[in-house]
């Protein structure tokens, strides 16, 4: 129990990640896959953010109470990763809209049956 509680942030991120992963693999709807992908990526972002926390730390800004501050680097990294994630989502959505135009579906199995 102690083990679970002490590392709750990891449990949360693993849980979210698995939800996203499941959706990416198992869902037939292309948009749902993308939603899954976002959950999947966000879980990893959460993981990064949670490891940057220093106990008792404040925001990494120079101000009068700043004795101990959180590690800002993961935040910066994740900012980049978020941009990447947004771009990926944008590309994916653009693809989906064009797939819908040319196939008339966004269900994977129906599209595959058309390709045959």
């Amino acid at each position: 129990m102690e083990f679970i509680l002490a590392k709750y942030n990891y449990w949360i991120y693993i849980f979210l990640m698995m939800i996203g992963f499941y959706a990416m693999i198992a869902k037939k709807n292309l948009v749902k896959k993308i939603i899954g992908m976002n959950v999947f990526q966000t879980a990893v972002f959460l993981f990064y953010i949670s490891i940057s926390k220093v106990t008792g730390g404040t925001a990494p800004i120079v101000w009068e109470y700043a004795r101990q501050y959180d590690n800002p680097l993961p935040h910066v990294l994740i900012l980049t990763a978020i941009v990447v994630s947004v771009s990926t989502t944008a590309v994916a959505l653009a693809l989906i809209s064009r797939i819908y135009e040319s196939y008339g579906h966004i269900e994977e199995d129906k599209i595959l049956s058309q390709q045959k």
Partner: protein
Amino acid sequence: MAQHLPILPIILPLFAAVLIPLFGRIRVQYAWFFSVGATGFSFLCSSWLLSQVMTGRRVRYFLGNWEPPWGIEYVVDYLSGFVLVIISFMAFVVTVYSWKSVEKEIPKEKVGLFYAVFMLLVTGLLGIVITGDIFNLYVFLEISALSGYVLIAMGGKREALMASYNYLILGTIGATFILLGIGYLYMVTGSLNMADLATLLPPLYENKVVLTGFAFLVVGLCIKVALFPFHIWLPNAYTYAPSVVGTFMAATATKVSAYALVRIMFTVFSPGFDFKMVPVTEILFYLGMAAMLVGPVLAISQTDIRRMLAYSSVGQIGYIVLGISLGNQTGMVGGLVHLLNHALMKGGLFLVVGAIIYKTGITQISELKGMGKRMPLSMAAFTVSALSMIGVPLTVGFVSKWYLGVGALQAGKWIALPIILLSSLLTAVYFWRIIENVYFKGAQGQESGRQREEGPPGMVVPTLGVASLCLVFGVFAFIPVSIAELAAQMLLGKT
């Protein structure tokens, strides 16, 4: 200025990517000129860098003059210099070649966008190779992957969209795994610089967090490399992409990921870790061999020539991974040299296929009858590349196979030898089908009946150049091999 060279191969294509949308509006041809200029200079800079490195000096560059481990560092050593030259050379050749093909396959209003994204792809791939920062590697990986998705989707058929989508899903899974792995490593070391990590990690090798991070990195990269059984995204992507994109990605994209795998396994981690503490090389060894058999077998059953070549790539990736996993210098040299060799062979093959599609629109193997007389030069290039793939002596393919075979024997892994040779035989089967069609079927007695339909010089010359390099580096094999040997020494030298 000379000390700023390491940044140039990266920012030249980047600048081109930015300028092309601006100038491409004025005239579409400018897009091509900018691309050729950028990749050409990029290739020159890379060659210069490699020559610098060969004098025994490691070239390092600190972005913004922030010293590592705080700032991002670009490192050119034997390995990255070697791969840098391969990638920039192929980029240059493919760009020169692209004019006519793009003109035909891409709608006019999208040509500017096409070249811009193409340059981004080049930037991303070169960035992966040159960076010495593990997070920067992730970013470049994603830049190249994103531009790859966009470019593949530009293929004319609607299947291209689904191919791109599937690639996107799998690619993102891979990239996110890599990101997660990087996070784990950062968590225990607090560093993102590869060289720094290499000194910080050894005491932590028993640490479970490090092991988990390593596992995520390797699995993520294996997806990017398209190692069997993670190869499912690859065939469709290469088949339906515009032929220029298919060519470039087949020649370079998976190689760069393989490079990243080598970097992570041997620079960030150490050979001692890979071979003694975790079973990763063991697993890669068997997966590589499986790929070497599965790829050609699937290739034999294809009717579309590009899909066949794509499956053949799956098999060839197996060679590279096998070489990496053998754990001795000879095997490593084989794997690294195959990075170059496969880029040349597969590049040459796809260039020819692109010319065929441009000229005749043929994509099916059975329709290639009599092509030997219609496009003699292109088909000669095809034959040379195909013989190379089979591994006939005096071609580059034989060099890789020789090193892999000898490496396998030296490592005591006898099982690899028959697999290598069996794979060559299967390769011979699917290429011979084409060669038979091209030269010896149909069109009997039409010695002068069919006129020549050779592609435009802008396509034929690059194709012949690449194909002749297959021979040049097959005969003067010591040139790439000596570089690969230094790189292998460097990678395996650390304990």
